[in-house]
């Protein structure tokens, strides 16, 4: 029973690291495509849309995994404000992982743009055409992208703080690769 309490399950760890790569790529592609009119713009946009939908699917899957298998508890000696910060930031990360793709999809729908995935597959619109909805969702997508990146930086800083300074096993709960339990220090 001990290792269930100390580490995230293997599917959860695999999802976490794969999604970390996807989401970072997504955020860099997003700001990159907004910064250029060169042909790379089209390449970036054509990756941004299907990758966003892939992240949405993975995030929903991960939410299910998380709800079913739970998470190891935070160290008992972690100060209260840090615990609160951890809980809130994790809720926010899940909300953004699921919310950002939906906002993007809704924004394209409200603008009557087709949502094209790889292989020319089209997704249906999820909102009716609307100036005001498009503007609202565009602004949200833009602002939340920067909030998302800032939150990821905070998340990385906190993970490294656990790994390098507190050395309390929180980092290993997500980072360990082996099937054995990393010893709590």
């Amino acid at each position, binding site marked *: 029973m001990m290792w269930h309490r100390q580490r995230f399950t293997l599917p959860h760890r695999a999802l976490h690291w794969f999604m970390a790569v996807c989401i970072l790529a997504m*955020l*860099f592609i997003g*700001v*990159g*495509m*907004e*910064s*250029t*009119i*060169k*042909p*790379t*713009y*089209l390449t970036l*946009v054509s990756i941004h849309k299907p990758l966003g939908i892939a992240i949405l699917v993975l995030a929903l899957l991960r939410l299910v995994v998380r709800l079913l298998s739970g998470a190891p508890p935070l160290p008992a000696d972690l100060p209260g404000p840090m615990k609160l910060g951890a809980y809130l930031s994790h809720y926010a990360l899940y909300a953004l992982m699921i919310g950002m793709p939906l906002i993007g999809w809704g924004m394209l729908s409200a*603008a*009557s*743009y*087709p949502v094209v995935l790889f292989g*020319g597959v*089209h997704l249906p619109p999820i909102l*009716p*055409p609307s*100036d*005001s909805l*498009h*503007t609202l969702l*565009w602004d949200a997508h833009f602002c939340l992208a920067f909030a998302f*990146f800032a939150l990821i*930086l905070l998340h*990385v*800083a906190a993970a*490294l*703080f656990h*790994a*390098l*300074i507190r050395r309390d096993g929180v980092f290993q709960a997500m*980072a360990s690769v082996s099937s054995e339990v990393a010893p709590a220090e």
Partner: protein
Amino acid sequence: MVQPHQSPARSVFASLVLIAVIIGCGAAAFAYTAGWFSPHRLTPNQLVDAFTPPDGHPPLGHRRNHAKGICFTGVFEANGAGSALSHAQVFARGQYPALGRLNLGTPDPNAPDATVRVRGMGLQISTPDGQEWRTAMINPPIFAVSTPQAFYELLLASGSKDPNAMKTFAAAHPEIAAFGAWANSAPWTGSYAEERYNGLNSFVFSDGSGTDHIVRWSLLPAAQPVPVPPDDLAKRGPDFLEQDITQRVRGAPQRWTMVVTVANPGDTTADPSKAWPPDRRTVDVGTLVVQQIEPEPDGPCRDINFDPTVLPSGVRTSDDPFPAARSAAYAKSYDRRTAEAKDYPRTAPDTRP
């Protein structure tokens, strides 16, 4: 995993520095990607800003260029001949709903029609397979410049207070002479229906066997063009083009033949300022039939971005750099005007299609 062996205090300090460096590098890489360290990178915002009129007031709620226009609906009647070039359903014999916008190449939505040299058409054709083809065409036979960067510089030069700006620009971009010759010598007409609209940019068609063909397309009017001196057009009132097309379509549908021109190997495909030789293979792929005209404020074209990179499967962009630049700039123009919808109110309560 770093497992420091130093004394705890030094180890903590070193770890904090390491964390700060990692986070700092991440933030810097993000800022670099966003172009914050690259003021010379031409962004969609800069390109759209360059359309701002000399008085500094963009046309709030309107497209930032081709701001004056009128909506139409109709059908595209494909004759099936285009299927030899592209497997897109829009070229299979049949009738497909079309929606578009006849417009003037100006950032002023109130420009008198006789004052604007470039006329255009935005067109969207939808097919039952759920695909869409959007294109925005203009009446000159070639584009003014070779690259999006040059186009940006042209906008800056034409808005510049320096009296020599255009001369300097033309010296650096001699390709603009051909456009200038067209603008000065081509006859004006009294009707949107008498104009030929040219896609100018090259695209790649893929046929059923997977073979690629690099093409450009044009819409050739069925109505016979009648040259009218611009001075005479000026006497017809500020909106004569919109009145004319409304009347004509009320009388009878107006038609254009869509002609696809296929490049030969070795033709310049990346530069819309260079026409292809006139002997290139052309294929008539169908007829656009305009059946109804609607004013823009409540019309179905108002909220469509005629982004030339919205293409059906079977059509894709080529090495021509313009469609990407246009897509980026059109999206920005769309973002701005939809955020300003209150400055361009609808006249009917709710006529959204």
